[in-house]
């Protein structure tokens, strides 16, 4: 915990020392992906249930912000909490309806959820409909100076919260319950693990974190339209990052998100954004086939082989 906060402080002041706003813009995106990847991994990596609707949960957080921006302007930290609650509730509802059935149904339902929520947002004029919504962002903030640094700091604290949460779960009874579900749900159920309740906890937590990651997004981007909030790249990245990093521990999504996130930032600038998505897709397929346990798994294998 202390280490996490200390390293976060190092990252922030390190970025500040470079004193280039671009570092904050690019860094924000990478941090956002760390939160998304960690959130996805709480459900996908620990319990083995695949969520393809990360973009939907993310967008829900973002659109909660747009809604409140228009009706009742609140400070962003409050919006993050509200966005988290909204997305968490949707996650709970989805899980309640589909998790009692086979795992595949949950995956399909999340995939369809993104399409449907997008339909709702497109038809909802109050939050801009298909035209999108403008969010005027204040240029200064008392705490940190430039506003982007404030957003960066917020996202950094979300990363800390997410990672501490994931690490805590991993070492608790909850985490062992999740692992039991992943390895053999039937056996877990027979041993008295309350599988449905645990799965619902996982979906709610994971959905809430994704919503929290999405809440500051409108302030970051300045102009939010449905196709950018529901972009497939969020769904793909939040799956690809844990898969490439390694799904069984909290380190995996972190490594995956930092590597893939930075790679994409570089590729977007140097090549083109379509090509960079292609790279993500190819890496995802390549890693699930060749290195099923991701980078963390590769390193562990190497260490084990070295010990012999």
């Amino acid at each position, binding site marked *: 915990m202390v280490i996490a906060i200390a390293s976060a402080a190092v990252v922030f002041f390190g970025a500040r020392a470079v004193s280039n706003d671009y570092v904050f813009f690019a860094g924000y995106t990478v941090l956002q992906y760390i939160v998304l990847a960690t959130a996805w991994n709480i459900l*996908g990596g620990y319990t*083995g249930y*695949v969520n*393809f609707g990360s973009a939907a949960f993310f967008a829900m957080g973002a659109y909660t912000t747009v809604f409140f921006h228009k009706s009742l302007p609140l400070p962003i930290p409050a919006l993050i909490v509200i966005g988290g609650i909204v997305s968490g509730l949707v996650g709970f509802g989805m899980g309640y*309806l*589909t998790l009692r*059935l086979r*795992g*595949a*149904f949950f*995956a*399909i*339902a999340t*995939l*369809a*959820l993104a*399409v*449907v929520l*997008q*339909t*709702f947002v*497109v*038809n909802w004029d109050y939050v801009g409909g298909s035209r999108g919504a403008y969010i005027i962002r204040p240029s200064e903030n008392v705490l940190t100076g430039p506003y982007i640094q404030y957003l960066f700091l917020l996202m950094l604290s979300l990363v800390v919260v997410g990672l501490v949460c994931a690490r805590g779960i991993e070492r608790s009874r909850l985490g062992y319950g999740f692992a039991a579900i992943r390895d053999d749900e039937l056996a877990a159920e027979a041993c008295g693990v309350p599988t449905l309740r645990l799965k619902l906890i996982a979906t709610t937590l994971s959905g809430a974190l994704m919503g929290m990651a999405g809440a500051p997004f409108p302030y970051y981007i300045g102009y939010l339209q449905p196709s950018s909030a529901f972009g*497939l790249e969020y769904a*793909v990245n939040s*799956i*690809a990052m844990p*898969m490439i990093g390694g*799904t069984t521990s909290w380190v995996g999504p972190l490594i995956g998100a930092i590597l893939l996130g930075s790679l994409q930032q570089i590729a977007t600038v140097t090549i083109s954004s*379509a*090509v960079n*998505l*292609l790279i*993500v*897709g*190819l890496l*995802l*397929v390549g890693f*699930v*086939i060749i290195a*099923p346990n991701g980078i963390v798994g590769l390193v562990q294998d190497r260490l084990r082989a070295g010990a012999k």
Partner: protein
Amino acid sequence: MDLSFDLLANAVIAGVLLGGFYAAVTIGVSISFGILDIVNIAHPAFIILGSYIAYIINSSFGIDPIVVSIIVLPVFYLLGAGVYQIYYQAFERYGQESLRGLSFFFGLLFITEVLLILVFGVDYRYVEASYIGPSWHVGVMDFPLRMLVPCLTALAMFGVLQLFLSRTFMGRAIAAVAQDQLALRLMGASPMRIKRVAFGISIATTAVAGALLIIIQPVEPSVGREYIGRVFAICVLGGLGSLPGTVIGAMLLGIIESFTSTFYGPSWAPAVGFGVLLLTLAFRPSGLLGR
């Protein structure tokens, strides 16, 4: 409110015709997901691929899109068999199909879409054929040929597949894979080989479904995403693994969607499939004609 008979009758007809087309789109998933238990969420991506192949050949040689799709059937069959081979080698053999197998298909879906965007851009593409445009009129009812032809083609494909599955040796073997793989192995048959054939057939149907799609509407690479929810909704609604159930489910969804777009506006139609999927999963997970 005066619900005119004309409007109602035409909404039903449009729904049934649309449903026929949905049956063609879903029948492959019904085989892969319903019978083989392979959650191929990349199915719509193969359909879009089929649409683009129909588009390329139609625009350069002027061959009818449905004829094109029948010519490329073997290619799609081989593609499907190849994908299954990778899937089996990398995931199914180790019992890891749930998490990694799903991610694999998701990656395929994504790669296909991005590649198509890179090659063709995001412009809408369409085909030309003599039956696109005119319609038949019976009394007050309209039968637009661009919907009628795909619907009839779809039903023909359903008929052929149903005969194949219930009458031929291979068809029965595929049904046996769904029932008990261990018993099949004890009989000296290889479930893997049979599943490869079945998955090949499932992907082959996307060649036809893709051609039908581009006859009905102009196509761009991300259109396929709308079909994911729809396809699985139909599959679950009809009952997993039941081909007649698939056709009934497709017709039902077609009619519901056609009513939604007639009375509430077409922008709501994509939400219908998902609603149907959730309700079915919540109340009758085995579907209408489930096992």
